[in-house]
C-alpha cells in the first residue's frame, strides 16, 4: 500500500509493532467472544448439577478454565513483547521479538480453535453417541493441558456452584462439638496430592480404556 517514497517512513520496528498490536487486537476480540462462551459453560455446569450430573458439569468447567488460562498466557506474552518493541535498541532485540510473536501466534491458534462457537459448547450437554464421543475428546485434550493447580481451582468452582444450585450450606456452624457431615469432612481433609490421585482414578473409571492423548 502506498508508493515507495512514503513507505520509507515505515521502519522494521513499526512493522513489528503492528504485528504485535494485531495479536493484541485478536486477543481483545477473542476475549469478548470467549466471555459469551464461558458464561454459557457456567450455565451448563449449573444445569448438569441440578440434574445430579457431576461429570458433565465438571467437564464444562474444565473447558472454561482451559480457555481462561489460554487468554492469560497470551496476555503475559504480549506484555513482554510490548516492552521489547518499545526498546530503543530495537535491532538488538529484534530476534527475541520475532520469536515472541511466533509463540504468541501458536497460542492464538489454540484460542481460535476454541472459538468453535456456542453450538460446540452445547454439545457438552448432549446425550447422543456423537455428543458423548465429543465430550470424551474434549476431556482427553484438557487432561494434557491443565496443571494440577488449574484442576484444583476447577473443583473448587464446582463445589461452589453445586452449593449454589442445590442450596446446600457449605459454611459450618461455629460450635466445634457438632459432628461434621461426612462429605464435607472428606473434602476438607483431602490434601492436594490425594486430590490429584483421586482425580486420575475418576477420569480413568469414567472412560473406556483408551490411551490418554498428551
Amino acid at each position: 500500500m502506498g508508493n515507495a517514497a512514503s513507505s520509507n517512513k515505515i521502519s522494521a520496528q513499526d512493522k513489528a509493532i503492528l504485528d504485535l498490536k494485531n495479536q493484541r487486537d485478536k486477543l481483545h476480540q477473542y476475549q469478548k467472544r470467549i466471555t459469551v462462551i464461558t458464561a454459557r459453560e457456567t450455565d451448563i455446569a449449573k444445569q448438569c448439577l441440578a440434574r445430579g450430573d457431576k461429570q458433565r458439569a465438571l467437564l464444562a468447567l474444565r473447558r472454561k478454565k482451559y480457555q481462561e488460562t489460554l487468554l492469560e498466557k497470551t496476555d503475559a506474552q504480549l506484555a513482554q513483547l510490548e516492552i521489547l518493541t518499545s526498546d530503543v535498541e530495537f535491532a538488538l532485540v529484534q530476534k527475541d521479538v520475532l520469536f515472541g510473536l511466533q509463540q504468541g501466534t501458536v497460542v492464538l491458534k489454540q484460542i481460535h480453535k476454541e472459538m468453535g462457537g456456542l453450538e460446540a459448547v452445547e454439545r457438552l450437554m448432549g446425550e447422543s453417541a456423537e455428543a458423548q464421543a465429543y465430550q470424551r475428546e474434549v476431556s482427553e485434550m484438557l487432561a494434557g493441558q491443565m496443571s494440577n493447580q488449574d484442576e484444583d481451582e476447577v473443583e473448587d468452582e464446582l463445589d461452589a456452584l453445586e452449593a449454589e444450585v442445590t442450596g446446600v450450606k457449605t459454611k459450618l456452624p461455629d460450635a466445634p462439638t457438632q459432628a461434621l457431615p461426612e462429605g464435607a469432612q472428606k473434602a476438607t481433609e483431602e490434601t492436594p496430592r490425594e486430590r490429584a490421585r483421586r482425580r486420575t482414578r475418576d477420569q480413568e473409571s469414567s472412560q473406556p480404556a483408551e490411551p490418554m492423548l498428551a
Partner: protein
Amino acid sequence: MTSTTTDFPFPPHHSFPPFYTLQPVLSTRTSQLASWSHLIQAYCRHHRLFQLSLRDAADGPLFYNRALGRRLSLKDAREVVEWMASKEGGERAEWVGDKERDRFWVWWRRPEEWAGVIAAWVEATGQKNTVLTLYELTESDATASQEFHGMDPELLQRSLQILVKRGKAQIFGSDDSLGVKFF
C-alpha cells in the same frame, strides 16, 4: 452497529402530519427536504449509524410515525436521499453501490470532517508517530468515548486516505490487519 440507550429526541416536525407528504410547492418542499436531512443525520448520529437501508428502515421510527399513522413512502424517501446527496443538499448522503438505490451513507460527518476529528484525537493523546491498528482506532476502550468509536471500517479507511493524501498519515500492513502511523 452501536446504539445509545437514551431515546432519540425527535424534532417537532416528526409530529407534523404533512411532514410525511412531499409538498408540491417548491419553496416549501425545499424547507421540508432540509428538515428531513437534519432529522436523518441527527438520528444516525445519535445511534452511531453510518449507513441506512431504505427498505430496512421503512417501518422504523425514523420514517414511520406509528402514533400519527403517517409514513414517508419509499419513493419519497428516495427523493429525500437524492436531495441530500446533491450539492444543494450539502452532499450529506451517498448511495452505496451502482445498482439499486437502497443503501446509502449518511454523512452526519463527511469523511473530511472525520479525518479532522481522528487527527485531532491522535494529536491530543500524544500518539503522533505511534503505530496504531485500524481495529484499535474504532474498537479499543481508549476510544470508547469518541464519536468515531464503532465506525464502519470502510468509512474509517476512506477518512484516513484523506490524511494519507495530505501526507499526514501512512497506512501499512496486510489487508485484514492494517496499521496507521500519523505524522
